[in-house]
């Protein structure tokens, strides 16, 4: 899948800048950290680094262009193995989706050239967002940053701490511009000391602040899990409600790309099993922003699981002054009648892809994004099951004792009478993630496996 590179913001308030110089040309291979271009404003010059790896497919905005608006696509990166020549077609996809979305209530707007049996379904708008809201195309990375910046402006108790969050602007550039706006007292670079700063964040929450603790990845939070589980999650309970612990632990979670076993794990099920924690794992930009703002305002400790591979993806984000979404509510991403596909985080992308493929075969799949893993929206799962009578859960993570296991348990306990087929789970292979590219691909979930499972429960 092509990755759009957008004009970055040097600060949350920057609106446009000059693309001073390209340091790469079309066809160049780049990896994370390579300097791609120099961006200038009247205040500063910044080197624009690659976050993802790939080949520079197309340079859209030539160097020397002035007044380039923040968010404008300036180049397109092709993934490994992707044909650079296909770039324009594939990069046009998000725009198409956007158009379909705005025409969601208009049957005439449906553009598919369907086979006779193809169910006609459009992406479903989030009912939490008022009709007629203007939408902007924003990456998940920017949506998360904006959520933090808005909450830091709103509440001076909110601050960010973690490794490389300040001067370096975030290991994955999620905290970009925050130091410039809020200063070093509220955007704090820590030593490499996860056990320590996770506990310090927890203690600061006990002391009346609203810390956002960034883990460079949740793999490193293994060092800190004692304070997430034993300190933060239990404060409210063990004190009989005397103490609150409003801390947010956030960072990328799940498999990245070619970083092997120690850097590729989904901790969703681990944290979701802990009473006292709230666990959120958003997929798109709107949920990333709306739920991170809700997490920061929550009186309870929140584990907020992002995904490195999704950071650079662009989605529609409502242009609202204060976009806050409810914690604990799943979202129907696509309505369907034949089978329910439940997923969360990066899995939602695969589920939506699978639903499209299933539509080509005449199967009408409903896709549910859990969004919050604890508390889990049982009602949303069961209501969809009552409608479709068949359910598949897709999870980018191990199968054993997983969110998938939990969803199956919910279906057995409270949805048994509605089941027309066993619930199937599509999870990663039950192995540490291997390094070799082909094995990695074999071990991770994809749309094809979801399609296969969905057909199986539909007895097709």
């Amino acid at each position, binding site marked *: 899948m092509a990755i759009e590179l957008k004009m970055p913001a040097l600060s949350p308030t920057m609106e446009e800048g000059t693309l001073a110089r390209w340091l790469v040309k079309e066809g160049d291979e780049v990896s994370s950290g390579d300097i791609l271009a120099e961006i200038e404003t009247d205040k500063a010059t910044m080197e624009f680094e690659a976050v993802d790896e790939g080949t520079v497919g197309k340079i859209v905005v030539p160097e020397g262009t002035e007044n380039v608006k923040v968010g404008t696509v300036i180049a397109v990166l092709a993934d490994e193995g992707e044909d650079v020549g296909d770039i324009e077609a594939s990069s046009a996809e998000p725009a198409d989706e956007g158009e379909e979305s705005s025409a969601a209530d208009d049957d005439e707007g449906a553009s598919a050239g369907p086979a006779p049996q193809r169910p006609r379904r459009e992406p479903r708008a989030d009912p939490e967002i008022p009709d007629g809201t203007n939408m902007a195309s924003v990456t998940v990375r920017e949506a998360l940053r904006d959520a933090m910046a808005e909450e830091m402006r709103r509440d001076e108790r909110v601050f960010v701490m973690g490794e490389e969050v300040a001067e370096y602007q975030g290991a994955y550039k999620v905290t970009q511009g925050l130091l410039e706006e809020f200063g070093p007292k509220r955007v704090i670079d820590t030593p490499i*000391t996860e056990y*320590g700063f996770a506990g310090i964040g927890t203690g*600061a929450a006990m002391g009346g602040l609203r810390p956002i603790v960034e883990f460079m990845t949740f793999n490193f939070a293994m060092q800190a899990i004692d304070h997430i589980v034993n*300190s933060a999650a239990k404060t409210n309970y063990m004190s009989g409600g005397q103490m609150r612990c409003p801390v947010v632990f956030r960072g990328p979670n799940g498999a990245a790309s070619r970083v092997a076993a120690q850097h590729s794990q989904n901790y969703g099920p681990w944290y979701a099993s802990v009473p006292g924690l709230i666990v959120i794992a958003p997929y798109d930009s709107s949920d990333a922003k709306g739920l991170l703002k809700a997490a920061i305002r929550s009186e309870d400790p929140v584990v907020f699981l992002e995904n490195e591979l999704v950071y650079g993806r662009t989605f529609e984000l409502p242009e609202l002054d204060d976009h806050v979404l409810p914690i604990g509510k799943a979202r129907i991403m696509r309505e369907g009648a034949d089978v329910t596909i439940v997923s969360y985080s990066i899995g939602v992308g695969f589920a939506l892809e699978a639903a499209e493929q299933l539509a080509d075969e005449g199967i009408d799949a409903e896709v549910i994004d859990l969004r919050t893993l604890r508390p*889990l929206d049982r009602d949303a799962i069961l209501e969809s099951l009552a409608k479709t009578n068949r359910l598949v859960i897709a999870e980018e993570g191990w199968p054993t004792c997983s969110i998938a296991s939990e969803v199956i348990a919910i279906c057995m306990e409270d949805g048994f009478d509605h089941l027309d087929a066993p619930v199937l789970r599509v999870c990663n292979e039950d192995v540490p993630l291997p390094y070799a590219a082909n094995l990695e691909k074999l071990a991770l979930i994809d749309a094809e496996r979801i399609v296969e499972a969905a057909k199986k429960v539909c007895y097709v």
Partner: protein
Amino acid sequence: MSLDSDRQLEAFRRMVRIRLFEEALIAHNPVGHLSIGHEAAIVGACMALRDDDYVTGTHRSHGHPIGKGAEIGPLMAEIFGRRTGICKGLGGSMHLTDARMGLICESAIVGGGFPLATGAGLSAQVRGTDQVSLCFFGDGATNQGTFGESINMAAIWKLPVIYFCENNGYAVTTPVATSHGQPDIARRADGFGIPGVAVDGQDVEAVHAVVAQAVARARQGEGPTLIEARTYRFDEHSNRLAIPIEYRSQDEIEYHRRERDPVALYRAVLCERGRQQECEAVENEVRETIDAAVAFARESPEPEWADLWDNMYASPPGPEHARGDRK
């Protein structure tokens, strides 16, 4: 910075409260990590703090809220597992939070309190108050990673934290001498560029003096101090725990009970100052307080089914939360 006349008697009162509280537990309740022998270290440290200063405790932590001046009845009821307990019976012996007295948590995970106290200190710095945070911990905890991680951050950010070690010589049964590369714990401060002070933990006024100095330093924005109070645990690691090995001699225990009892030592000091009658009055008063606390705890109701669920989250009764109504 020495204790004035009234505060001396208050220090004695709190020490006696800890002693009699623990003795009441021995008489009435089977399990707990007792602070008998540690009274001077605890009270000396707490008397140097204000009510709005933060304290974090440990698994051996009945003494910490008492030292900080907490009400006795709700503490006793908590250990009895009653609904009237300070934490509604949800925390228990090792988690005696008393937010009103600044006792923000007791982490029973050895070393767990270091970053929590440090974070509370950070909150004071960020909010611009002159509150300080005092972290109680034992000698065993200094071998946990959080010790170095937390003190390092407090040092580089000059946080108002006092790291107060109750070194009783043994981590359960493991002696400091065989488990610490640098058994002189106060000297570990050198590795973080902060002051480290060792003090006789059986002398309440000596402890108070060094903690008061560290508190003054912290309030002035000069950063953390590591204090090692050398004390002694009179009972076993945990009340009624059968220890199958002889890790310390009977002579050693008897010597400390006879010669190094902090309550007896301070009583003798006060008597020398002509305050015997006041000491006796305090002892009688505390006996009544403890008896009343035991009666209160025994008569209090146990928690109910709804209490199992009510304090898990501050805000959201999510769908899953409703499962508590299923019974």
